[in-house]
């Protein structure tokens, strides 16, 4: 019985080590991504609102909107600073790459009460 218990403990210890190692690798991967340009800046569309309503990103980073409502929504730049999205159905996403530093106001052209802002930093 003692042998079995020890084996179990060993197995648990091994799996903990394996788990921690994997976590460390994953974390390193994440950190590497932050240095690169493909960090995921996500804006969730839910309850007829953009969350977060204001998002600050660095120039060259990608920004992705994902629609979690049952109603279609669009992303349209108020000053026509970027190409507008087509209508996003439930769970559809739209991605842009942040350009020159500045403030980019946008809204949903279907429900214009819905507005948001992207702040692009250097």
């Amino acid at each position, binding site marked *: 019985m003692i042998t079995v218990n020890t084996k179990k403990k060993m197995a648990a210890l091994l799996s903990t080590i394996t788990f921690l190692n994997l976590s460390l690798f994953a974390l390193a991967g994440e950190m590497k991504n932050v240095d690169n340009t493909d960090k995921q800046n996500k804006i969730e569309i839910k*309850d*007829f609102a953009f969350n977060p309503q204001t998002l600050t990103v660095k120039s060259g980073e990608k920004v992705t909107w994902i629609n979690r409502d049952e109603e*279609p929504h669009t992303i349209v730049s*108020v000053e026509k600073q970027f190409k507008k999205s*087509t*209508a996003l*159905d439930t769970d559809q996403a739209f991605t842009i790459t942040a350009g020159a530093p500045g403030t980019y106001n946008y809204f949903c052209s*279907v429900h*214009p009460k819905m507005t948001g802002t992207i702040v692009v930093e250097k």
Partner: protein
Amino acid sequence: MSDYISHDHEHDGIDRRGFLQCMAWAGTGLLWTISGGVLVSKTLAQVAKAAEPLAATDLSFLQISDSHIGFSKDANKDVTETFKIALDRINAMPTPPSFLIHTGDISQLSKPEEFDTFDEVLKSCRTKDVFYVPGEHDVLNDGGKLYRDRYLKSVEGKGSGWYSFNKNGVHFIGMVNVLNLQAGGLGQLGDEQLEWLETDVKDLGTSTPIVVFAHIPLWAVYPQWGWGTSDSERALGYLKRFGSVTVLNGHIHQVLQKVEGNVTFHTAMSTAFPQPAPGTAPNPGPLKVPAEKLRSMLGLTSVKYLQGKSSLAVVDSNLS
């Protein structure tokens, strides 16, 4: 001044003034007759008993709205079927309506195949003339081009698709308030359309009954949810001198009514899914109700005009 509830003592969503203004909250299936701004209601059952065939010169037409063909989520997984049921109701009417008015959101996502399905199903309707105005769901990606190509064939559409026509002495005006919307704003008619409206009604006598139809309500139903049109006051200003103005809208998937002077505002039920009463949910998205209750919250609106009378009668009926 808000046109909406200002005193809700009972926390039931209705104050005294709101109740008088929006009596349609009491339920659907009421006949509304409007005479000199006085509103009289009868239940549909009473109307059925008193029903008489329309005289040959009188006019009846029917409003359908918000079909949302292509929608398939929990609130109604088969909107094509409920649209068919609505058409069956029209086909079963003892006096068929002269024509239909569709107040927008034919489709869910402006897809050609959604419009195709709608057109195919509509063929079963024995009333063939249909007048359309677009909903925001019909003009999602192309500024309404496909919608106009398909649904404005029988009228002389101006600008982004507005027009007027006359039937039995009644002047009908189809308006577009779902295009070129501004960030943070509401529905919008725009200067060009408003200027056209002013000219369109300029030479009409004040006794001409006017029917205006557009998708988004032309009154401030609930601006917090975008349920209103920013420049509708200007449009109504051009119509103020007329003795009878009936405004028919869709968009909010429920019956609400308001009378202001000689103007009666009325919103229709959807044939697809209901939406929450103003402010009663976190957002105005589709309202999920038990399956057995769904049809009681979908419906259509019948409008009758009796020649020589200044009023139009508006009757809502559900699909249950």
